[in-house]
């Protein structure tokens, strides 16, 4: 039976204080004050569904940069940056998966994350599933407070791994609780009572029952019930309806990260895998033009993620500046200044010719001298041996690195000024002048340990193209380890 061999998750570091939002909007929407508790995850300006999926996938795959064991890749999102360009192809290139894999984008409903996982489990071989969502909502809407951004990923294999899949149930029904047109605008919702009573309560239980039936389990045997919903108490109501014990209903993380759309069921599943003891039964379901439900049994084996949901949620920076949230989400027409007027057209030929360098952060290693460099060039940079055509591909993305020099630039255009960048040097050799993200003034100093993250480099608003590259971000785990070492 197929199972989940490894899993990972990602929540952006920024957490928007809901109180900051409701207070800013109290003049126009005093009714939203009741939602002013806790915080929601907030993507940085340079994060989207795709970059977060890459981070979750790296968490699942681990630090080994040989990904040749992956046969197929599924990327799921309803907020993917491209409508006609294989988003999975970009993620795949960032992860340096083999060119020979099959890859697909799975989209179209809030349950597409679980659909992708189900397809991977049914496909045979070793698959990677990555689900990311960066949700858009209008300013002053309830969704703005309810939603969150995040991602989860799973490595699926033929064996049981960390969790064996026991059964899957699906319902497909064109029940339109909300929709979003292909103009990339905002969700339009119908009445909550109708969605809950006629939609979720009627369409989810058949999928859950079917999954349990195939698994040969009764509902009372479920130890972890994962069901995301922005309606409070919705999972408990469903549990009661199908006979799942109330104590099996898992926290939907609404208070600490909000709901990350189609990624949220997978995120709750990843979270449950972190907690589940060997032999425990996990049931995950998600609603969306029907429902998807899957039952797993944890084995206590498999590969645990370095960060996972718990680690991601622990790495947080509270953001109380609601205007920054609006700006990052394109909800404010702001004066970017003349320096932002440059044309950001991407030369597609150059992008393709340098695909592994730009998307995969692949440099070169000289097979004669062992000298490592970025970018890979025909003539090696080694001053003592500028050998010709000796460079073999060398991956930098998973290497530990540190800051050699830096500045915080207030002059150049940046979505999050000052723009931090500097010379990053890698353990094992190589250096790259690159952007440093997720930092504030005072965070960066020479010698700071950093790790690589795949991020939006620039957005070409004129043509609707998003350009990606890698950036450095403080390696907070390494910094904490250094600090505790120093204290000893």
């Amino acid at each position, binding site marked *: 039976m197929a199972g989940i061999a490894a899993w990972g998750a990602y929540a952006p570091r920024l957490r928007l204080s809901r109180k900051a939002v409701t207070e800013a909007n109290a003049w126009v929407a005093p009714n939203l004050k009741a939602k002013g508790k806790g915080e929601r995850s907030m993507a940085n300006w340079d994060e989207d569904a795709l970059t977060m999926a890459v981070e979750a996938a790296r968490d699942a795959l681990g630090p080994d940069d040989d990904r040749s064991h992956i046969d197929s890749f599924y990327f799921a999102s309803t907020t993917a940056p491209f409508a006609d360009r294989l988003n999975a192809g970009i993620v795949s290139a960032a992860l340096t998966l083999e060119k020979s894999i099959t890859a697909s984008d799975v989209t179209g409903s809030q349950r597409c994350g679980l659909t992708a996982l189900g397809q991977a489990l049914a496909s045979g071989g070793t698959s990677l599933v990555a689900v990311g969502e960066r949700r858009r909502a209008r300013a002053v809407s309830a969704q703005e407070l309810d939603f969150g951004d995040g991602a989860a990923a799973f490595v699926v294999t033929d064996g049981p791994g960390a969790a064996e899949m026991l059964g899957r149930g699906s319902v497909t029904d064109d029940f339109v609780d909300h929709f979003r047109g292909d103009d990339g605008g905002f969700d339009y919702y119908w009445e909550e009572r109708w969605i809950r009573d006629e939609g979720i309560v009627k369409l989810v239980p058949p999928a859950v029952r079917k999954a349990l039936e195939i698994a040969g389990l009764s509902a009372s045997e479920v130890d972890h019930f994962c069901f995301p919903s922005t309606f409070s108490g919705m999972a408990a109501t469903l549990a009661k309806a199908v006979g799942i014990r109330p104590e099996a209903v898992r926290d939907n993380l609404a208070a600490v990260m909000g709901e990350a759309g189609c990624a949220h069921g997978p995120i709750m599943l990843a979270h449950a895998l972190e907690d589940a003891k060997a032999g425990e039964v996990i049931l995950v379901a998600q609603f969306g033009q029907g429902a998807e439900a899957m039952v797993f049994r944890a084995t206590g084996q498999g590969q645990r993620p370095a960060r996972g949901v718990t680690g991601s949620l622990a790495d947080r920076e509270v953001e109380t500046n609601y205007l920054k949230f609006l700006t990052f989400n394109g909800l404010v027409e702001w004066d970017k200044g*003349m320096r932002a007027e440059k044309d950001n057209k991407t030369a597609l030929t150059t992008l393709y010719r340098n695909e592994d360098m730009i998307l995969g952060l692949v440099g070169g290693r000289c097979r004669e001298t062992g000298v490592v460099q970025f970018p890979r060039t025909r003539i090696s940079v080694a001053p003592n041996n500028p050998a010709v055509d000796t460079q073999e591909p060398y991956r930098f993305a998973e290497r530990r690195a540190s800051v050699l*020099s830096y500045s915080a630039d*207030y002059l150049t255009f940046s979505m999050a000024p000052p723009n931090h960048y*500097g*010379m990053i040097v890698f353990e094992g050799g190589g250096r*790259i*002048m690159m952007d440093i993200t997720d930092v504030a003034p005072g965070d960066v100093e020479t010698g700071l340990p950093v790790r690589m993250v795949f991020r939006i*480099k620039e957005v070409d608003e004129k043509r609707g193209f998003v350009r990606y590259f890698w950036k450095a971000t403080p390696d907070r785990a390494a910094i904490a380890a250094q600090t505790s070492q120093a204290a000893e």
Partner: protein
Amino acid sequence: MPQGIRDKVAILGMGCSKFGERWDAGPDDLMVEAYLEAMQDAGIDQTQLDAAWFSTHIDEIGSGKGGTPLSIALRLPNIAVTRVENFCASGSEAFRGAVYAVAAGAADIALAVGVEKLKDTGYGGLPVAHPGTLNPQVMPNGSAPGNFAQLASAYRAKHGVSKDDLKRAIAHVSVKSHANGAKNPKAHLRKPITAEQALNAPMIAEPLGLFDCCGVSDGAAAAIVTTPEIARALGKHDLVTVKALQLSVSNGYESQYNGWDGSHFHTARIAARKAYKEAGIERPRDQISMMEVHDCFSITELVTMEDLFISPEGQGWRDVLDGFYDADGEMPCQIDGGLKCFGHPIGASGLRMLYEMYLQLQGRAGERQLSNPVFGMTHNLGGAPASNVCSVAIIGQEGA
């Protein structure tokens, strides 16, 4: 090593426009201004020019590609005009071209003109250049101050200098240049500043504040060069001759090989060594009389003092604070006010620096005149510390 350029070429005349926010002038007007002064200084007729070199860097707001902008502005008699561009060393490149043509015997008299018109962008700072198709996909969206500011973090780390000490030292660099520029009628910025002003100015790119950055100006400068023999035949005496012209260009070592520490300019040290050898200078700290260096940012000037082997490595900041480079110090630097006060019209800067060294060597620098200078050194840096071009030129009294 090649024989070198020492004493083979003399400067016949030089000119320099007023630098500043020249709302009244286009690039052609600026070129004419510098050119007419140089021609008058040289005392020759236009028909005596054999060839010209023209340096300008930013086409979009400058005067365009090719040689025609210079030839048309000056109405040159259909002689050869070569346009050169090498980032911030462009002006020095124009000079190099003219000098080499004379040394080679390809021209008896050659003209070098550099110009840049920066104030037609609509904003302060250098214009955002089109970076090509690959760079913007990987390089940070940085600015010149952000790139050069990185020297400071690496310099502090390497030499164990505190943030406060280094900030005080680079503040002094700017205070000194403003004091000098105040005495120069052709400078853009002519107000002295205090250390407190420099230390408390708004941040541009950490740790560089507003007064750590050079101005943005329009300007042009020109040189006319010939052989010493022709110069003498034209009635010139006490000649200023070219002693050394060196250019060193990054080959990726700094940006791609883990050997460079980020605290200095690899190319500057190479160019300086070669220039001293070419000029026959063995003890630069004692023998060089004065310098104009590429003070695009105060930290650049500070590390340059070490790269040119004037200050011992790691001690430049102490020399700066001790006043060693002040107008009344042992090695006056930026005696005309530097890029700090002249601004940095890219194609013109190298020639503007040589203009001041030439005036000083001829004893024509007025209120700024130093006593009996023998060797004047100029230095330009283009690009960014991790990938740059560096030129070092030395001119001096003939036979010195």
